[in-house]
């Protein structure tokens, strides 16, 4: 797993450097979660919905690490004519069923997929990755009420709690207090983990929930693994210079 993580982090950095694209901070915070989920947790009938669409790069790299995206496809990221846009596009690749990027959509979509599975008697869980800033969106609270009320146990929320959003710290923009407590109040079973501890993530996701839908609140570090990016707001948007990229690669290699 360690080697998968290292390779994926390097590939993600390379992809964002070559395309001159930002959003690397929120991709690095989510990468360990995505890799652990896809390599160690998800099975045949499970589905994954990305709600924090700006972590598209981390998802593409995860699919690449599973052999579901070829190197040549990955090389088209962010280029003219690509199916791998900065945010997932409609009818892009089969593993990513929805175009997302405007926040507050993925959870409702995941709820619909899970309800559809229920109504049709089909097996499998629906994992949905959200950011923490994304909880500013009212639609998420609508979806949360719906999931809790209908006891959609097939839905598993993963929250990438990195504490930073587009133009400030989440605590300073619209302080949520304890998101975990709020999710509990809404009727979910909540587990909290270190979002960079793959064993802990795996264990939390593999232990079935009791009678309620489950949320995994993962404490993460924006820009994780690259010290000059860690917990820095600017790495929500900034692309890397050649020098910064070299430094990042050296650090990622050491992890």
């Amino acid at each position: 797993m360690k080697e998968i993580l290292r390779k994926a982090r390097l590939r993600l950095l390379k992809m964002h450097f070559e395309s001159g694209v930002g959003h690397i901070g929120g991709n690095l915070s989510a990468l360990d979660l995505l890799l652990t989920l896809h390599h160690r947790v998800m099975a045949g009938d499970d589905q994954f919905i990305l709600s924090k669409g700006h972590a598209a790069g981390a998802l593409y790299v995860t699919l690449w690490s599973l052999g579901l995206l070829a190197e040549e496809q990955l090389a088209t990221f962010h280029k003219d004519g690509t199916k791998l846009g900065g945010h997932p596009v409609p009818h892009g690749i089969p593993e990513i069923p929805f175009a997302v990027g405007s926040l507050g959509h993925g959870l409702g979509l995941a709820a619909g997929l899970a309800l559809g599975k229920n109504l049709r008697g089909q097996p499998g869980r629906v994992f949905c990755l959200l950011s923490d800033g994304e909880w500013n969106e009212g639609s998420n609270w609508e979806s949360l009420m719906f999931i809790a009320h209908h006891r959609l146990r097939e839905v598993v929320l993963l929250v990438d709690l990195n504490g930073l959003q587009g133009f400030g710290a989440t605590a300073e923009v619209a302080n949520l207090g304890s998101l975990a407590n709020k999710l509990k109040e809404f009727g979910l079973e909540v587990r909290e983990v270190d979002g960079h501890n793959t064993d802990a993530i795996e264990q939390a996701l593999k232990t079935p929930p009791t009678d309620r839908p489950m949320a995994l609140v993962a404490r993460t570090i924006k820009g994780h693994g690259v010290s000059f990016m860690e917990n820095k707001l600017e790495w929500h948007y900034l692309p890397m210079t050649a020098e910064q990229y070299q430094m990042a690669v050296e650090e990622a290699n050491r992890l």
Partner: protein
Amino acid sequence: MRTILTRTLVSYARESDFVFLTGDLGFMALEPLREVAKERFINAGIAEQNMVSVAAGLATAGLRPWVYSIAPFLYARAFEQIRNDVCLHNLPVFLVGNGGGYAYGVMGPTHHAIEDYGALLGLPNLTVQIPAFAADVPQAVLRLMAAARPAYLRLGRDEKPENFVVPPYAPWRRILSGQGATVVVVGPLAGGILAAAQVLPESQRPTLWVLSELPIVNAEIPATFIADFQQSGHLIVVEEHVVQGGAGAALAHALLCTQTTPRRFTHRFARGYPSGRTGSQVFHREECGLDPASILRLLSNTP
């Protein structure tokens, strides 16, 4: 039209891909459907954004969801969900907006839907069905189910004149012939205008067309309709919708593109709230010159 929609959907409610969501509306109307559809009738609560995303998820899972609310709570509140989740993915989600135009009358402007299809028709893959008569509803439902793509069904109040036999539902229908102007009406407004116009002497009587499906497909504009306005020389479009994004603008565009323009073109449309006051649907129509008497005056001024 809600009652007949309920009856129609009851007949499909046992199909394996049927599912119906309502935004906590439909009291005294949807109960029979709830009874038959059972767990496939979902009151999603007063949370339209989630309701539309859920519907998109259901459609992706292989179902064909119906989503019901008072029109603006659906197309305006959940516009981005309709755009991103439903239309971008070309999913068979059938949106039902009750209260097209000023149908909610004195309930006030928050409940009116006078820019609904204009707002929605900018979205990819979506078609709009606008039944003019209650009898149209079952066929409009069939039509959008057969298309199996995003659709918006704009419901109003049935205003069919007594003794009028509604011709089979189609995007274009001629419901009255005469030697006067050629009038295209969108939606239930057609009933009152038909009742007023059909008693006119033939020399003044307009030819009435009902337009029920949008966007207008140029190739489907009937040759008989073109012949009608070329002969009469005056084309009038009447709709309970604002000018922007409305059927009048779309038809003018279509006719310009196909180089078959009338000598004279008049458009009657919803003008919002000219007096700043609210009232019944009839009150609002009168303020905008959409009521039958105003249309008759327009016809009598036609040379």
